[in-house]
């Protein structure tokens, strides 16, 4: 970038900059013109102006210091407007002193617009006298040519009354129009009598105005200022409409974004969380309450986390992450890719259904770099190229969602058919499906992926929209709380479970309600269904009874491990549950192999036999896909670990012979088998260094690592404990086994045992440690639960028993290096 020439090039332009800026605001009719003139008043010194603009041009050159510059700049702007304020308000005959910040229209910032080929982002901007920062909430004009709105605003400002005006109900449109007309009549000369006025708040609540949350602010290439806003909507605009529990000043935050020109901002308002709302006192009329986020596509409510309303600096990033979680918690692994997709989706779709385009938004222009506010990825992160092994490790994590879900297509088809069969017709017939299967067979995953697919079909318009409520029985504080969770998900309102039960009964079971037609079908997914079984099973009864009611439009999908749960329930419940069952059997080894290799597609890190070995092993024991993935991941970790060990001390590996020893001491014998053939190659190549470093990247995870991982996972920990225990404990254990062999009795007393121990010791040249030491050793083993011992009060007559089969002891201590003589007693 050639900054300096441009800078010199731009400074002369500034002189005639104000003139092109005037035609940019054609949409604001004569009412705004006084403000334009006031701008001239407010910028008294042209030199000052130039200085400021130069400063702003400087700030373009140093993007790192951008924010600090911007704030400084803001301070300056404030300084310049301070002396002007009184006479401007005089000129405009404002009677409201509390509205001072709106009155001053020191639009210095506008003049600073420079022709650049880039957008410049700001944290804080003084625009038209108002100070707008990222994270603020603002009123936005509803449409272009909204002259009546502007006038009304004037009216409102003229006859400002107390902040806590009336609590008028949301008005329907005709009344609003009438009001408007009335006011326009009133406008020329303010009468002394009763005057109807509408504050910005009231206009918002009758949806003549909008509010938005500023996500970020930038200056466009043509010098106009824009911001990306996140819309708020009033309860009337949600699918559910205004409900009795909605507060007067309640707004919902949406997931609907729009790029809006700063020109359409009216002024600041304050949208707060309930906690802040209760404390707020001096913000005036423009305070609102926002407790829930509303999904405009899915018409669902989600309570905002407290943290969301935190600091403003990284609000944008926070929101995005949060949103990703809420929408599809991991439909895609890469987060930024997801974000990009979303933007791409947003771009062509244009204005969302909930909000038309705000005043002077983009007029058909689409800019490639619409994604904004992305932070630069630090260089050192980028230049580190992940090795195949590291990528393999990442994809094998249980948390990563695979791109494809092999081996469950049949079940997924069945689930899809079930749901579609229930909701596709005009009338939704309530149904119930019970899914069971052993852990780790993809039950929940299949249902969720089916729901994702259906969601895209809804987007495409082939299926009518529906509600989807996902509940995990394990996450409920008590089974009854499920009513509360369901009700909150359906209506966005929190009530106690008793009240929720009542309301849900009304919604699902009460036939007298006529407004059933608008209710959309509801799909209720209950994971870990068996946890909802209470003593009298009334929770399950209620939930499974609703689908059998006419007009309930409820579809219940229950997931649990137990195959015969319906049979264990009361007959009246299993009768209502119906006969729709779906069994997820344990995976066989081919399926496990396919699952692992589909995850590792494109990553060349595993030998084929290694994968097969792992999957065969798991399939023989449990058929749990989680376990198979864990084993492979652990194997990859082990391999990675050893390769790193290999590369980090190159000196030790350079000498022939030391490497295998080093490996053997670190990891155990099987690794030597693997690397031994490679060692000559490695040492040869290590002479020139660079090739040597390439060699570990090529390493594949082989049988040896998988074997080690399986050992770690399946081998009982007691062997490890026995192997690593003290010398005396080993003797103690061997004595117990010996005793067992001799007497054939599982139980022995401490007295007998100590005799055996002393025999062993004396005949093998060990020193007998004494009774109290022996007793202490026994206690320690008892604490480890290697042996089971009675309470210590009996001392010598304490009964002892091995907790594990004697074979385990024999296996662990047979080839002990320290005490080779132990083997002959085993």
């Amino acid at each position: 970038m050639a900054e300096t020439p441009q800078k010199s090039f731009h400074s002369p332009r500034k002189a005639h900059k104000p003139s092109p800026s005037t035609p940019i605001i054609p949409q604001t009719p004569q009412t705004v013109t006084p403000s334009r003139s006031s701008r001239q008043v407010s910028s008294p010194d042209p030199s000052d102006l130039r200085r400021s603009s130069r400063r702003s041009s400087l700030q373009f050159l140093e993007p790192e210091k951008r924010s600090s510059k911007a704030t400084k700049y803001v301070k300056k702007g404030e300084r310049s407007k301070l002396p002007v304020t009184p006479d401007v308000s005089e000129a405009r005959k404002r009677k409201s002193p509390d509205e001072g910040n709106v009155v001053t229209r020191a639009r210095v910032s506008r003049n600073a617009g420079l022709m650049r080929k880039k957008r410049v982002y700001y944290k804080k901007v003084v625009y038209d006298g108002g100070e707008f920062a990222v994270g603020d909430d603002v009123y936005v004009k509803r449409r272009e040519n909204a002259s009546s709105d502007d006038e009304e605003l004037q009216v409102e400002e003229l006859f400002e009354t107390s902040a806590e005006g009336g609590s008028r109900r949301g008005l329907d449109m005709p009344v609003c129009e009438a009001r408007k007309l009335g006011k326009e009549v009133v406008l020329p000369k303010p009468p002394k009598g009763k005057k109807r006025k509408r504050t910005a708040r009231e206009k918002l609540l009758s949806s003549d105005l909008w509010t938005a949350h500023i996500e970020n602010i930038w200056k466009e290439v043509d010098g106009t200022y824009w911001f990306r806003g996140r819309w708020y909507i009033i309860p009337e605009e949600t699918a559910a409409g205004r409900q009795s529990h909605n507060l007067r000043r309640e707004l919902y935050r949406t997931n609907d974004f729009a790029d809006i020109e700063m020109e359409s901002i009216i002024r600041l308002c304050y949208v707060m969380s309930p906690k802040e709302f209760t404390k707020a006192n001096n913000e005036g009329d423009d305070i609102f309450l926002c407790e829930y986020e509303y999904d405009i596509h899915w018409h669902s409510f989600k309570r905002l986390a407290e943290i969301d309303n935190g600091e403003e600096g990284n609000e944008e990033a926070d929101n995005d992450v949060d949103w990703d979680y809420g929408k599809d918690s991991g439909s895609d692994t890469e987060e930024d890719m997801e974000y990009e997709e979303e933007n791409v989706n947003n771009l062509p779709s244009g204005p969302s259904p909930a909000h038309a385009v705000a005043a002077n938004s983009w007029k058909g222009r689409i800019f490639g770099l619409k994604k904004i506010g992305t932070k630069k990825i630090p260089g050192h992160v980028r230049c580190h190229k992940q090795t195949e092994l590291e990528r393999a490790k990442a994809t094998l994590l249980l948390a990563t969602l695979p791109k494809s879900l092999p081996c469950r297509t049949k079940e997924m088809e069945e689930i899809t058919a079930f749901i579609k069969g229930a909701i596709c017709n005009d009338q939704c017939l309530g149904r119930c499906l019970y899914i069971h299967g052993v852990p780790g067979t993809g039950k929940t995953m299949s249902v969720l992926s089916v729901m994702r697919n259906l969601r895209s079909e809804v987007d495409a318009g082939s299926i009518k929209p529906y509600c989807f409520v996902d509940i995990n029985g394990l996450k409920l504080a008590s089974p009854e709380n499920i009513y509360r969770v369901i009700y909150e998900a359906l209506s966005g309102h929190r009530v106690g479970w008793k009240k929720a039960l009542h309301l849900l009964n009304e919604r699902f079971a009460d036939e007298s309600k006529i407004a059933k037609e608008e209710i959309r079908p509801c799909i209720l997914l209950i994971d870990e269904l068996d946890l909802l079984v209470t003593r009298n099973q009334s929770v399950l009864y209620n939930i499974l009874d609703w689908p059998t009611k006419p007009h309930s439009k409820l579809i219940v999908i229950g997931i649990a491990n137990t195959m015969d749960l319906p049979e264990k329930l009361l007959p009246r419940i299993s009768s209502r549950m119906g006969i729709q069952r779906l069994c997820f059997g344990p995976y066989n080894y081919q399926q496990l192999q396919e699952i692992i290799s589909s995850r590792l597609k494109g990553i060349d890190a595993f030998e084929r036999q290694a994968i097969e070995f792992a999957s065969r092993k798991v399939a023989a024991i449990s058929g749990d896909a989680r376990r198979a993935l864990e084993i492979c991941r652990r194997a990859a970790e082990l391999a990675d670990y050893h390769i790193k060990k290999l590369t980090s001390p190159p000196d030790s590996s350079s000498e022939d012979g030391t490497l295998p020893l080093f490996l053997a001491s670190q990891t155990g014998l099987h690794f030597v088998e693997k690397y031994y053939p490679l060692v000559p190659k490695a040492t040869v190549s290590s002479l020139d260094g660079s090739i040597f470093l390439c060699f570990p990247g090529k390493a594949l995870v082989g049988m040896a690592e998988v074997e080690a991982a399986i050992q770690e996972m399946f081998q009982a920990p007691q062997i490890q404990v026995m192997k690593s225990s003290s010398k005396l404990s080993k003797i103690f254990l061997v004595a117990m086994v010996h005793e067992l062999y001799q007497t054939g009795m599982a139980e022995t007393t401490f007295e007998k045992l100590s005799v055996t121990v002393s025999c062993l010791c004396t005949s093998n040249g060990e020193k007998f440690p004494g009774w109290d030491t022996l007793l202490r050793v026994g206690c320690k083993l008892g604490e480890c639960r290697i042996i089971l011992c009675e309470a210590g009060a009996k001392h010598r007559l304490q009964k002892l028993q091995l907790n594990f089969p004697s074979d385990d002891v024999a296996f662990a201590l047979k080839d002990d290096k320290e005490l080779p003589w132990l083997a002959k007693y085993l």
Partner: protein
Amino acid sequence: MPSIGAVRSESSGEVRSGSGSTPQKRRSISGGPISPPSPVKWKSPRRSVNGSPKTPSKEIEKDSDAKATRLHKSPMKNLSEIFLDKSKWNPGDSKQMSAAKEALHVSTVPSTVVCREDEQNRIMDFCKACIEHEKAGSLYACGCPGTGKSLSMEKVRRALVDWAGQAGFQPPDLLSINCTSLTNTQEIFSKILEKHQPRKKTKSSTSPLQHLRNIYSKKQQSSGMKMMLIIADELDYLITRDRTVLHDLFMLTTLPFSSCILIGVSNAIDLADRFLPKLQSLNCKPMVVTFRAYSKDQILKILQQRLMALPFPVFQPQALELCARKVAAASGDMRKALSVCRSVLEIVEAELRESVNSLSVSSEKGAFDQQTLPALDSLTNQEINIVRVDHMATALSKTFRSPIVDTIQSLPQHQQIILCSAVKLFRGGKKDTTVGELNKSYVDICKSVLVPPIGILELSSMCRVLSDQGLLKLGQAREDKLKRVTLKVDEADIAFALQGIRFFRNCLQ
């Protein structure tokens, strides 16, 4: 007769022609010993059956009368004739399919409740008597799930209001409560009280129960004390440890000026005897109406009645009968019969989808089906336009078949070995064992077949998985090793499931 049929078909938007002779013939065949139970409340089955286009049902009636022992030989010819002149059901049409599904859905309330007239009349008579004499009373209806209790109550309730209007009595207040939806058992009294005095705010000093007692024990000053019909569904949810709620509820009907007619509905047949012994001594034991499980004929009749709403035949009569017989034999639960019918429709749908995918294959298959089913021999239908017996058999086997053998066969190898070792352990006549002993036996087997055994921790978690699948029963114990283990499936099942594997055949010898 044909006139009714014409009316019906008109109403359903179907044009029937040339069927004048056939119905007559049919009637002559089937005019047999079906006794229309009570023509008061619903149309006699004969009439409706004859009149409806749903002719195959007639065959069933006849068949069932003949005790259905012989094979469907003679009606076959008749059947094929009928099929030819009937409007065909096209399962490919999604509208027709969904209409069929809706007719068979549990939530669809039929216009008349068939096969429960007797019980309904008894309840009705009881209520009428109560209202006529302005006397309180209690009734208890019991029966297995899915036998139409709640549905009948709903009908009675409606009928009672109509009757009261016609007979010139003051219509009673109606209150139907499902006791599962109460958050607290005492809440039922406040609900009753609320119904009594919708305006008045109850004083906090007296409980709702107290208040109700006061109302019912005093003579009402105004003559217009309305009777109240309380229908309490799932009454057994009111059973508390000291049974006071249930007792108090029934005692309300014994008070001198009580005006409530209490109808309790539940599954337990002896609930009144067990929990209300005191009422017996007061000689105001509730009258008990028992809803028996549906018999095969009743299920059939109900299914037919539901399908009558459709202008086209959906099920082959034999298919319906198979379903009815199977369900009646298993539980007599109407819900089950309905869901079986529904799943049959889904099977047909799936089959249709397949046949669309591979048309040539499906036509071949259709030909094959025709050979196997002599009933359809004379027909030249290439595509499915009726639910056949084989479809129904598939659905029924899906529902009623025990999945144990399949489950055992799909188990991981080690779990199969555990089952084997359990079988071996229990050979000696032992009833149960502990996980520790099971482990010993398991390790022995593993050693004998040279399979490395898994540790005991792993084994106990696998035992839990097996108990989840209903193969083992795992008792409670503080220590994993000491948990009791019993086999929940028959030894023979395991032997059968594993007989294909030589490895296990040796184990189980």
